[in-house]
């Protein structure tokens, strides 16, 4: 696997874990149509937008869009963000000398032109993927 797929596999490993699925938060990757019956869900985009420390490394941001029911305040979005923190902040995945690290998160509100019945907040967390060559 190359650096992009390895990064995706490492990060999606979080959301495939039993402890995450036990949170009962519907989770979708980007470029995937969510189930319209979900009252709340998250959508994960991995954006490897910067060069890494060598040819087999890459850096970027994991952007998690948090969709919750609109007009009910932000508390539920903040709770989901806190849950995401528990699973993501400071986590490392290393195997065979290849390492993906997640750092500290931020959260900001955003409009939701796709569906005004849901509020949308963007949780983002920088990552670095280190390969050895």
């Amino acid at each position, binding site marked *: 696997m190359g650096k992009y797929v390895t990064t995706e596999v490492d990060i999606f490993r979080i959301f495939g874990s039993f402890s995450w699925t036990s949170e009962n938060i519907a989770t979708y990757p980007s470029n995937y149509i969510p189930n319209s019956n979900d009252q709340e869900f998250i959508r994960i985009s991995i954006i490897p937008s910067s060069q890494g*420390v*060598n040819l087999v*490394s890459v850096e970027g941001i994991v952007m998690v869009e948090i969709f919750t029911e609109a007009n009910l305040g932000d508390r539920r979005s903040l709770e989901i963000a806190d849950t995401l923190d528990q699973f993501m902040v*400071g*986590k*490392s995945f*290393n195997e065979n*000398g*290849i*390492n993906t*690290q997640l*750092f500290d998160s931020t959260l900001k509100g955003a409009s939701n032109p796709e569906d005004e019945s849901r509020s949308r907040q963007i949780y983002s967390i920088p990552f*670095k993927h*280190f*390969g*050895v060559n």
Partner: protein
Amino acid sequence: MAHIDNIGAGMFSDMSISTDPAGIPDLDGLDDAATQLALDALFKAETDVPAVGSYSRVENVREFPAMGTPPNVVNVPIYGQATSQQIQGQADAPSMELQLNAVPADWAAGATLGDMVGDGVQRVFRFSLLNSKPEGYNSSIEVGSGLGDVQNSYYYWFGKIDAQQITPQLTDANTMTITMTIQSEFFGAYTATDAT
């Protein structure tokens, strides 16, 4: 686990100081493995109360200095050669300053760490390079309690805490500079392995 075998950021790196009343151990004549055992024995239990095998962590570190013996390269002219040779001369002991996000209660008079400042007592220091968060910070192989839970590389040295300066910040976290003097070579790098 073992030594760190990948490139990464040392997000969970740690500085700890032995509070064992026995002070610094006698390492004369010990080989590497025995030296590690003797020093590991001082970092078995994280507690604020000085006791055998106890240590205190320096928390809220904002910036670590470079760890290890600095170079002092000396050029030696050699008659008849186009280039000189180089040798490693005796290096100056490194200045060891830790930048902290200040928590004054941790460094108050009467607190374990606060009382170490300027008391003139030599202690054993340990710096652990950690890319992942361990369950605990003991230099032990006990599952779920030690550095061995994750890949780790650590160093020991003897020294003193000599100064503490607090810098008030009007729009950021207050910072504190802790200055240590170093009175030995650096021992390591060692690693703790998990019992499993």
